[in-house]
């Protein structure tokens, strides 16, 4: 799950499987084995991939473009096992056990095959047909590890293929295997005691339209699967409830007699059998020419005691600096481009004798606001995202979670929250969905409720604009202030997490495991195509979808005069007392309220309200913008509080809806609105107090 056209914004809420009649093939595997990259190259979808655990928290669906037959590929979230200790494991397990599919493609990492074969053997236990794809073979070769695919195929009983996620042509070899008649894998021998029990269950089930594989799997899950799961599984296999009850009694008796009623010991025995089998298989078909594993020099720098935090800040500063500096020129170009369009359309409509109010509505309302949104928002994002994606692809983000975990633990939260915060920098709705990577319900809620503290793609450029006008003359200074704003946002996230975990969401920090993947050379071309095109499309789409109607509505509001002033004037005057109280004004507050569907339109609304005549004036430069703001009473305090309120206020409507969907609780959704708002108001009052003293 990452930041793409389909995963951020309103797309973040769409998860259901499409209707499909052809064959279906599942992609399963541990997190971070390049599964999504393979899936993307087979389907042509731009599913976001990154070098960290848990990028895919939902299933992704795509038609295979390499296959001749009609084939739907389903990318499951990465998981370590099917024992379902976390949300993504539950999703993957249910899909593997209960959905209709022809084949399961099990993707493993060549350099740590042994660990990955654990999941592979669990899937082979139930999948009707499977094939094993040993991915990242090139990376493993570099580490001195090679895998014997034919031998692996012999040992597991299913076709095996070596691939390198970034090598061209490998996906064709893989898709060619989809058409071959496959087979189910070899089962595991669980030892005489358990096998005796399995045989007795099988004798009850086989012949009822249930295969030996299904019967064995059912026998095993009756032992370790948990009640709900066993009942669903029985329903899936159409096992009669009375027979199910009989088998469950059989299972309980077996646990009582063979393991003294200790279900944990039984689970250990099952896991140990799979582990032993995985180890044996991996040992036989892997050649390791030198001892692998370990943290290299890069890790000593990135996670070292004295270097970790300076390096982190320096990286963030560097990204922000390039973003601020690089965005100016393309912004100007876009502005001029939209001026030309506006004049052109205006001229054309006038020539066509369209009534003047409508021409003004279209040109001064819709086109001008849309142009403003695109020219201010697009360039910073087109620079920020590729840079950020690079960091992500290299594998830096898990290191960051590793460094910061201690701070989050101190606040009763989970270190993986830093990953969801990074996603929040792109889109809060995506960040909220991403919180699924956090296993503990309580810690997930903390991460959910505070995600809006990270300024997302829509708010980011608002910060850059106001910082540029009021506080910084150079790009370097802008970047420093922007960095400070983000650091404050992070500190507030920690503080509020701490408050939440000692009040509403009380509890102790739970356990966590975090995989630190090897560093990978990112594929620059892929990064550029993916982040620029995906982002560009996303921003443009959203800008058009929101800014066009919003532009029209706002133009109408500001040009419809009731009594002595426009509707928008009445509204903003009504809000003036509250706005003034927190060091802003009514117009700003109104803009934030109207900006609920998308924060991108906040600044254009403010400008439209200020400019007499009710249209956004010609806005060729930051200086001019600054003059308008200052003429309307903006002081340093207003600007500071605007920055604060931009970071801390109610999340956009999409994020709110996503929180509702993820938590299923109206109370928590309200909390997600109230917490950042309250934080913002408090901070604004605080700065107002400070400004009144100095």
């Amino acid at each position, binding site marked *: 799950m990452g930041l793409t056209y389909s995963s951020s914004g309103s797309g973040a809420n769409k998860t259901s499987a499409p209707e499909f009649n052809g064959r279906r093939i599942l992609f399963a595997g541990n997190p971070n084995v390049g599964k999504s990259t393979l899936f993307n190259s087979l389907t042509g979808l731009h599913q976001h991939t990154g070098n960290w655990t848990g990028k895919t928290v939902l299933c992704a669906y795509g038609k295979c473009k390499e296959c001749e037959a009609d084939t739907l590929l389903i990318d499951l979230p990465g998981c370590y096992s099917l024992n379902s*200790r976390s949300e993504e494991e539950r999703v993957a397990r249910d899909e593997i056990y209960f959905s209709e599919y022809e084949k399961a493609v099990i993707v493993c990492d060549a350099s740590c095959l*042994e660990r990955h074969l654990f999941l592979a053997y669990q899937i082979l236990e139930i999948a009707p047909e499977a094939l094993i794809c040993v991915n990242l073979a090139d990376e493993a070769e570099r580490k001195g590890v090679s895998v014997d695919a034919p031998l692996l195929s012999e040992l597991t009983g299913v076709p095996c293929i070596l691939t390198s996620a970034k090598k061209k042509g490998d996906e064709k070899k893989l898709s060619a295997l989809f058409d071959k008649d496959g087979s189910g894998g070899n089962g595991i021998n669980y030892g005489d005691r358990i096998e005796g029990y399995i045989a007795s269950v099988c004798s009850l089930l086989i012949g009822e339209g249930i295969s030996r594989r299904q019967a064995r799997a059912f026998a095993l899950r009756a032992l370790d699967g948990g009640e709900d799961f066993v009942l669903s599984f029985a329903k899936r296999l159409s096992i009669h409830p009375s027979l199910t009850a009989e088998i469950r009694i059989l299972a309980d008796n077996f646990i009582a007699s063979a393991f003294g009623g200790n279900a944990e010991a039984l689970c250990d025995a099952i896991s140990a059998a799979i582990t032993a089998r995985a180890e044996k298989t991996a040992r036989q078909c892997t050649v390791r020419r030198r001892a*692998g594993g370990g943290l290299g020099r890069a890790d000593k720098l990135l996670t070292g005691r004295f270097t970790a935090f300076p390096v982190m800040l320096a990286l963030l500063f560097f990204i922000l600096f390039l973003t601020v500096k690089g965005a100016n020129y393309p912004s100007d170009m876009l502005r001029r481009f939209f001026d030309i369009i506006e004049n052109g359309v205006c001229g054309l409509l006038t020539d066509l004798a369209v009534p003047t109010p409508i021409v003004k509505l279209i040109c001064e309302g819709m086109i001008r606001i849309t142009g403003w949104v695109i020219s201010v928002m697009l360039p910073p994002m087109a620079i920020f995202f590729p840079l950020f994606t690079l960091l992500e692809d290299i594998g830096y983000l898990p290191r960051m979670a590793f460094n910061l975990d201690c701070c989050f633990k101190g606040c009763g939260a989970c270190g993986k929250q830093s990953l969801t915060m990074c996603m929040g920098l792109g889109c809060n709705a995506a960040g909220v969905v991403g919180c699924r990577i956090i296993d503990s319900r309580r810690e997930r809620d903390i991460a959910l409720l505070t995600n809006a503290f990270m300024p997302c793609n829509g708010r980011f450029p608002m910060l850059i604009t106001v910082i540029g006008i009021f506080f910084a003359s150079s790009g370097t200074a802008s970047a420093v202030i922007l960095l400070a704003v983000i650091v404050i946002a992070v500190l507030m996230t920690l503080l509020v997490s701490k408050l939440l975990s000692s009040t509403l969401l009380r509890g102790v920090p739970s*356990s*966590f495991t975090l995989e630190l993947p090897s560093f990978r050379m990112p594929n620059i071309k892929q990064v550029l195509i993916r982040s620029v095109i995906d982002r560009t499309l996303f921003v443009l789409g959203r800008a058009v979808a929101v800014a066009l109607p919003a532009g029209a509505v706002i133009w109408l509001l500001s040009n419809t005069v009731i009594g002595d002033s426009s509707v928008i004037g009445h509204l903003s005057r009504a809000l003036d007392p509250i706005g003034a109280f927190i060091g802003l004004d009514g117009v700003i507050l109104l803009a934030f309220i109207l900006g609920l569907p998308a924060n991108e339109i906040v600044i254009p609304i403010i400008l439209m309200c200020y400019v007499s005549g009710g249209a956004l004036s010609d806005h060729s430069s930051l200086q001019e913008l600054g003059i308008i703001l200052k003429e309307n009473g903006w002081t340093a305090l207003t600007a500071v509080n605007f920055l604060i309120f931009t970071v801390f206020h109610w999340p956009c409507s999409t994020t709110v809806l996503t929180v509702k969907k993820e938590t299923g609780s109206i109370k928590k959704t309200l909390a997600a609105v109230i917490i950042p708002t309250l934080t913002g108001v408090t901070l604004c009052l605080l700065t107002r107090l400070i400004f009144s003293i100095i």
Partner: protein
Amino acid sequence: MLTSMSQLKNGERALIYSLENKKDMRRRLIDIGFGTGTEVVCLGRAPFSDPIAYGIKGSVIALRKADAALITVDREEN
């Protein structure tokens, strides 16, 4: 020599002897490779000395100190 896994110094190797973690965490640790008898090497600590990174079966997995303390290992003597 038996000791808790969190006591391993950077670079020390050990075999996993037993896991006393709570149920769900215990299962998860076993699933990702921390089964008994597996060799583990302590690779390093985060800036505030928690969590700790361990090498296991060719991967690097970080655990919090409190979780690692519940795993008993048999330290390999050099």
